[in-house]
């Protein structure tokens, strides 16, 4: 950080929070809260006189609360800028520091937080991760037994700049421990707390064990683990080295730690899986490798930046394989563990990649976006026709790209739109259209797909990213499915308009599949949620119409689930096969008037009459040609 602060083109703002992010790629307006240090940066020379006289002592967060700090303090020795800060939460206002500072007059208690607005081209988020609090796992006794500590606490105790100057002592009697144990997966790979693997703890515990062993070869170190995961280059070799150094590895997750109340020695109860026997071993000190979890304020940051979170709470990347450093919002990138637990090499790689992605934006005069954006016909918007905007488009947009002000028609901020089509499908007035996926274009496709014997067809709406990929995989993997399937691709399940489904049944389709991504995989943040809500609504409507079970089906199919795609289609075909042709025809005819009633506004959508006209001609031409031949 010190090095970065010396670069003329890098402006490091520490002790500063992001309050608000507005605008879009290349044109962000970011409001920053520069917190009051109560010390003037241009006057303080970091001499430390204020801290020496300060009578307040509080736990030092940087030392994992193992050492005290004053109310006038430097957060850590590498702080930028290297000046003191006065912590008003603990300050008792004795003003001894002001006296001690003397003629420098660097201390200013009247200072307040400052809000600064900056023009920003691109944002790289590198907010890191938080630590799981092991005290909630009562079986390990953290917080109750003094000699059960976390590995982070051990790091400070073992650090030459730490509170003990690198002399590793145990908290209960300040003696050097002889028998040590590390416990991995404390709170991670545990469905009760965090189901995912924290990625780096195996290597982290091996590194700590090797360090301790190098400093004092006499200590006895055991690492308790469920599985040791050393997948990167050189990691397995490091693991081998640790084994050769005499570090013990015991497979088996400890179920209980007990303490001898006199000596404060600890007993670890676990099954040694290799032996198939339960063991109870005595240790002087135990280090818990707690899980990496999202930062406590990750939810807040996610709403400030308008970037989605994955199920675990980490920031969600645009694509897990192809664009792991991009957020779904253009111009915002991720570096390091804020996107998921990762070790130092991966964080450095991702950080460099994010920086180069960001510099592409900074060095461009113009920025190309996907052409499938939404466009409003202002004269159809209810704000104009009825004098009151319904606002459904604003609710549907995962990106906040719809602007609705006063009595003006809704407006799409094109640079923010990603083209999921949620607003297009939700608009009750059909006042929004999506370029390249207009109602007319989709309708023309549907009519072509259902031109011939529609009652035998299964019309499948697939989203571009997942279920279309699933269908593709079913094909390339040779999973056979019904030849009566007719696929229709839109960008997201959010675009699957109720009108399309009604129109499909009005045209006499046998069955309709409504498919898209699983909610956590959606490429449009919450596009799938919008689509899923609509699908639920449709399901209820069709139930009320007494449509046969299985003729309308909603399925979330990922690009990796080719087998599921094939299975669902075959099941839908089976539903049609189980109905006699007469029965099916009768049901289709019975429901048609209802569908027509629900579609009465559809022909008013610009382009739709022409599409109907054109597809009618096309259908006629096909039948004519058939008759001739």
């Amino acid at each position, binding site marked *: 950080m010190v090095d970065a602060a010396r670069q003329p083109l890098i402006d490091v703002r520490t002790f500063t929070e992001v309050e608000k992010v507005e605008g879009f790629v290349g044109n962000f307006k970011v409001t920053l809260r520069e917190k009051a240090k109560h010390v003037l940066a241009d006057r303080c020379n970091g001499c430390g006189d204020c801290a020496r006289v300060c009578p307040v002592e509080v736990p030092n967060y940087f030392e994992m609360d193992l050492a005290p700090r004053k109310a006038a303090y430097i957060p850590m020795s590498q702080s930028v800028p290297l000046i003191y800060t006065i912590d008003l939460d603990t300050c008792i206002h004795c003003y001894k520091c002001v006296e001690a500072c003397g003629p420098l007059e660097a201390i200013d208690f009247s200072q307040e937080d400052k809000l600064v607005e900056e023009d920003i081209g691109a944002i790289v988020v590198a907010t890191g991760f938080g630590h799981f609090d092991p005290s909630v796992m009562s*079986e390990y006794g953290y917080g109750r037994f003094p000699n059960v500590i976390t590995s982070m606490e051990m790091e400070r105790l073992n650090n030459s700049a730490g509170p003990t100057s690198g002399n590793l002592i145990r908290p209960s009697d300040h003696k050097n421990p002889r028998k040590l144990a590390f416990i991995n*997966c404390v709170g991670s*790979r*545990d*469905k*009760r707390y965090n189901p995912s693997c924290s990625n780096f703890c195996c290597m982290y515990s091996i590194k700590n064990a090797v360090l301790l062993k190098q400093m004092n070869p006499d200590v006895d170190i055991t690492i308790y683990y*469920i*599985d040791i995961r050393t997948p990167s280059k050189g990691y397995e070799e490091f693991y081998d080295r640790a084994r050769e150094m005499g570090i013990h590895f015991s*497979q*088996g*997750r*400890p*179920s*209980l730690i007990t303490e001898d109340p006199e000596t404060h020695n600890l007993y670890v*109860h*676990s*099954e*040694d*899986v290799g032996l*198939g026997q*339960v*063991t109870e071993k005595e240790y002087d000190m135990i280090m818990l490798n707690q899980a990496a979890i999202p930062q406590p304020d990750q939810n807040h940051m996610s709403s400030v930046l308008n970037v989605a979170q994955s199920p675990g709470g980490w920031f969600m990347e645009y694509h897990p394989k192809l664009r792991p450093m991009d957020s779904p919002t253009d111009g915002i990138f991720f570096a390091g563990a804020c996107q998921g637990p990762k070790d130092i090499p991966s964080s450095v790689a991702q950080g460099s990649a994010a920086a180069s992605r960001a510099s592409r934006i900074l060095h461009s005069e113009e920025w190309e976006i996907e052409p499938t954006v939404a466009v409003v016909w202002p004269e159809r918007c209810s704000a104009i026709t009825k004098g009151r905007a319904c606002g459904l488009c604003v609710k549907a947009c995962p990106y906040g790209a719809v602007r609705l002000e006063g009595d003006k028609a809704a407006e799409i901020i094109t640079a923010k739109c990603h083209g999921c089509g949620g607003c297009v499908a939700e608009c009750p007035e059909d006042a929004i259209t999506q370029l390249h996926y207009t109602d007319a274009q989709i309708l023309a496709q549907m009519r072509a797909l259902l031109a011939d014997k529609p009652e035998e067809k299964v019309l499948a709406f697939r989203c571009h990213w997942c279920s279309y990929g699933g269908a593709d995989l079913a094909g390339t993997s040779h*999973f*056979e499915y019904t030849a009566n399937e007719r696929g229709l691709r839109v960008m997201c399940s959010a675009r699957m308009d109720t009108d399309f489904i009604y129109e499909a049944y009005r045209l006499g389709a046998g069955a309709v599949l409504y498919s898209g991504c699983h909610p956590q995989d959606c490429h449009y943040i919450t596009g799938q949620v919008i689509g899923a809500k609509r699908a639920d609504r449709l399901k209820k409507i069709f139930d009320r119409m007494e449509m046969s079970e299985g003729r309308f089906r909603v399925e979330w199919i990922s690009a990796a689930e080719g*087998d599921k795609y094939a299975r669902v289609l075959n099941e839908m075909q089976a539903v049609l096969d189980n109905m006699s042709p007469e029965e099916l025809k009768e049901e289709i005819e019975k429901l048609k008037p209802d569908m027509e009633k629900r579609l009465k506004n559809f022909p008013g959508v610009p382009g739709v009459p022409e599409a109907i006209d054109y597809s009618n001609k096309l259908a006629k031409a096909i039948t004519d040609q058939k008759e001739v031949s």
Partner: protein
Amino acid sequence: MSHTPTVKSFADEVKALPGGEHLELCYSCGTCVSKCMIQQKIEPEYNPRRLLRMVMMNMQEEAFEDPTTWLCSACDLCYASCPQKIHISRVINAAKAIAVNHGKKTLINTAMVNQQTCVACGLCAEACPYNAISLVQTKVPYRGIIQIAQVDPGLCMACGLCSAVCRSTSIGIPEKFTDESIIENLWDWMLPQGARN
């Protein structure tokens, strides 16, 4: 192309029973074993992790022979500490139910009903935490065809609750835990040495 197997394996059978569905999630961490009171106090060979493994690997005969299948009392200490949230006692119970279906006999002394004195009041059936007791029409010597309590040895865990609630002392755990032997133990334990005589 059909992917449904025609013959159900032992693992599939267990997974089809309630509680067995999460069986495959077990990653063999051993927490259940070191938590288990039966392993610590009664049977050192007892090992739920190994039994789950046997079920996964379709080792049906070995699973039927293993004491783990028969001794679990469903105290659920392991369930509360399992990081994969597998309801281990229900997996074990599923394996046990299949073993009983195969005609295997349980290793423990299950509750026995004295057919001559049972009055079919139903208190024991109500008290049983394992739903092992039901009232059944049975032909009893000297009493004719009457309703009396019947214990399903595949379900009974020999906890003795039935014996404690029975008002006609008609149901009990044989051998070590009869009313007489428990009272004997109590006398031994409470009175100072030699006082009984």
